[in-house]
C-alpha cells in the first residue's frame, strides 16, 4: 500500500484499503478557524441539536487566524462566536485572540496595523500553528476546514481540507466517509543549490503536472533528497499539494520528524504517543516523477494560477509594484531568515510587506541577532513594513482594511501559495508566486529577477 492507503486503512480499522474504495475513517483531530468555524458550528448545532456535545473536546482544535486584524464588525463577531462555542463545549485547545474568556474581540484601527494587538494564547496561521502547538503527529488523520490543511502531510499524517457540512459531521461523530485517493509519486533526489528553496520544488512540480494534475489524488514524496529538507521545507512542499488539486501530500517519517513532533508535543502538553507509517516496497502508484533537486532553478508561478510556471530569470521584464512575504507557506522563520539574507544591508525599491505566520515567529525574528542586529530591525531597515500581527493578512485579500491587501490593480510578487484573479484583493491585480529568496531579490530590483543575480555579500 502507499503511505496514504496505509493511513486510511488504519483509520478505517481495516487491514488493507485500495485507491478508489470508499471508507469510513476516524478523525484524530478536527481543526477549524474564524472563517469556516462559525458556519461549521452552525451546521453542527442545526443537525445535532443546540445542546449536543462535540465528539471529543480534546480533538477539536480552534484557531482564529484569517480575518483578525480588521475593524470589520462581522469578522470580529466571528471570533466571538468561536469563543462562545468553546465555553459552552469546554473545548481544550482554543487559541483565542484575547486572553479574557468572557471578553469580546475588537480590533483597534487607531493603534495602527504594525503593533501587536493579541493576547498570550493567540497562535496565528492555523497550518503553522498546528505543528508548533503540538497537534500534528505521524500516523494520524487530520481534517481541517481549510484547503491548505494538507500542509500537515509533512509530518507523515493524512491531512486534508473539508467544507463546513463535512466538518459539522466530523464534529458530531468523529468520522467521515472518504474515497481513498490514487497516489502520484515524486522522488526528490540530490540537494538544492544556494538561492533555490523548497518553494521552487513545489512550483516546479505543479508546473510539471498542471494545476489540476493531481485532482482527487495523493502526492507522495520520497527519495534521498528528503533528508536534506528541513521540517519547514517539507511543510512548504506539502502545503501546495492542493495547488495541483491534490487531496493530500505525504512525506515519509524520519528522525527530523520525530525530533520536531516530540519537542512540540512535550512543550505544549499535547498527546505524545504516535505511530508512523513506513514506506512499503509493494505499492501501486498512478504516476512517477523524479526531481533532481540540484538542477532546479528559482521558479515563479505567474498570474493567474499556480500552474503558470516560468523560471525567474525569464521574467526580467515584469515590473512590480509590490512584494509580500507571509502566509502558512512562506511566512515561517526559515523563510524570513532566507529573505533577510538577501536584504541585509540593502534597501527594497518597491512597497514590501512582511507578515510572520505566527506570534512565535515574530518572537524568533525579534530575538535572533546577526552581528548584534535583531533580524526584525534588519528587515525594517531594509524598508520592509513588518507587522507583529501574525495571521493570514493579505494572503487571501480579506476585508478591505487588511494589512498589505491590494486595493488597486497592482502587480505583486509573493511568497504565498495562491494567485487566482483577486486572491490578494483587487480582482484586476496580478500575483506572482515565488520563494522568499526570489521575492527578496525582486523587491530590491523592482522587477522579477533570479535571486542568484543578487547573491548576498
Amino acid at each position, binding site marked *: 500500500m502507499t503511505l496514504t492507503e496505509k493511513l486510511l486503512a488504519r483509520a478505517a480499522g481495516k487491514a488493507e484499503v485500495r485507491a478508489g474504495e470508499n471508507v469510513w475513517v476516524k478523525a484524530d483531530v478536527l481543526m477549524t478557524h474564524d472563517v469556516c468555524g462559525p458556519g461549521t458550528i452552525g451546521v453542527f448545532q442545526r443537525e445535532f441539536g443546540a445542546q449536543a456535545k462535540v465528539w471529543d473536546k480534546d480533538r477539536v482544535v480552534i484557531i482564529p487566524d484569517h480575518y483578525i486584524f480588521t475593524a470589520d464588525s462581522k469578522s470580529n463577531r466571528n471570533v466571538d462566536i468561536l469563543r462562545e462555542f468553546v465555553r459552552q463545549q469546554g473545548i481544550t485547545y482554543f487559541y483565542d485572540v484575547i486572553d479574557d474568556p468572557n471578553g469580546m474581540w475588537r480590533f483597534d484601527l487607531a493603534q495602527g496595523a504594525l503593533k501587536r494587538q493579541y493576547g498570550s494564547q493567540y497562535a496565528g496561521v492555523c497550518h503553522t500553528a498546528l505543528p508548533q502547538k503540538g497537534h500534528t503527529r505521524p500516523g494520524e488523520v487530520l481534517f481541517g476546514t481549510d484547503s491548505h490543511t494538507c500542509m500537515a502531510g509533512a509530518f507523515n499524517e493524512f491531512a486534508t481540507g473539508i467544507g463546513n457540512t463535512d466538518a459539522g459531521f466530523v464534529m458530531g461523530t468523529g468520522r467521515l466517509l472518504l474515497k481513498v485517493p490514487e497516489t502520484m509519486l515524486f522522488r526528490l533526489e540530490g540537494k538544492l543549490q544556494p538561492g533555490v528553496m523548497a518553494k521552487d520544488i513545489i512550483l516546479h512540480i505543479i508546473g510539471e503536472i498542471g494545476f489540476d494534475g493531481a485532482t482527487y489524488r495523493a502526492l507522495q514524496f520520497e527519495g534521498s533528497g528528503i533528508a536534506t529538507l528541513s521540517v519547514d521545507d517539507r511543510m512548504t512542499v506539502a502545503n501546495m499539494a492542493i495547488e495541483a*488539486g491534490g487531496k493530500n501530500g505525504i512525506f515519509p517519517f524520519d528522525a527530523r520528524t520525530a525530533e520536531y513532533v516530540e519537542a512540540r508535543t512535550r512543550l505544549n502538553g499535547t498527546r505524545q504517543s504516535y505511530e508512523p507509517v513506513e514506506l512499503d516496497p509493494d505499492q501501486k502508484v498512478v504516476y512517477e516523477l523524479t526531481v533532481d533537486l540540484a538542477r532546479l532553478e528559482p521558479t515563479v508561478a505567474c498570474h493567474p494560477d499556480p500552474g503558470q510556471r516560468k523560471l525567474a530569470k525569464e521574467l526580467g521584464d515584469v515590473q512590480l509594484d509590490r512584494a509580500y512575504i507571509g502566509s502558512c507557506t512562506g511566512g515561517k522563520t526559515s523563510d524570513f531568515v532566507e529573505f533577510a539574507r538577501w536584504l541585509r544591508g540593502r534597501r527594497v525599491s518597491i512597497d514590501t510587506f512582511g507578515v510572520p505566520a505566527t506570534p512565535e515567529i515574530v518572537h524568533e525574528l525579534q530575538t535572533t541577532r546577526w552581528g548584534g542586529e535583531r533580524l526584525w530591525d534588519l528587515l525594517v531597515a531594509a524598508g520592509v513594513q513588518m507587522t507583529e500581527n501574525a495571521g493570514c493578512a493579505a494572503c487571501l485579500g480579506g476585508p478591505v482594511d487588511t494589512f498589505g491587501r491590494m486595493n488597486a490593480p497592482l502587480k505583486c510578487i509573493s511568497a504565498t501559495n495562491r494567485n*487566482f484573479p483577486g486572491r490578494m484583493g483587487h480582482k484586476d491585480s496580478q500575483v506572482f508566486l515565488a520563494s522568499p529568496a526570489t521575492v527578496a531579490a525582486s523587491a530590491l530590483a523592482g522587477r522579477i529577477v533570479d535571486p542568484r543575480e543578487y547573491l548576498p555579500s
Partner: protein
Amino acid sequence: MQSVFRGPVYVVRDNIDTDQIIPAQYLNLVPTIPEEYEKLGAYALCGLPESLYPVRLVGEGQLDTEYPLVVGGRNFGCGSSREHAPIALGSAGVKVVLAESFARIFFRNCVATGELYPCECVGRLCDELRTGEVVSVDLDAGAVTVPRTGQRYAIKPLGDVRAVVDAGGLFNYARQTGMMPR
C-alpha cells in the same frame, strides 16, 4: 425528485476558482445565519473580472440570478475549501453547474450541502454555448438539449452522489438511509 432543469445558462471558462465564485472579503458572512445566507447569493461569481464577463450572474442590487444553470470549463471550483462557494451559487438560485471537470473539494461541498448538482459534461459546453441561451438539462436522461437549435450534449451520470443532492445534502441523506437517527 426533479430531474429536468430548464432556463438560460451563464457561461464561464476554465479554472474558475473559489475566489471568483465568492471573493474572500465576503467570507465574514456565516452561511448558517439566514440573512447572511441570502447575502452570499448576491455576491455569487462577482469575483469574475468585468473585462471578461461584462454580464453579471446576479444583477446589481439583486439577491437572485436569472440564470439557474452555470456552464464552466475545466477545474471549476478550484482553490479553497470554503463552502461559501456552492452556497453562494445555490443561494442565488443556481440549480446545476455543468463543467468539463470539477475541483475535488468544491464537488464534495456541492453534494454535502445539497445546494446544487455538479454535473460533468462530455466535451466543452463552455465553447458551444453563450450566456443567455436557454437549455434543458435532464439528469435522468444524462443530456443537455438546446431547444433553439435542437443540439443535444451528453453529461456523465452523477452516480451515488445524485441521491445525496436529491435528499438535500449529507445530513438529510444520512437520516433517510438510516445512517443517522432521524
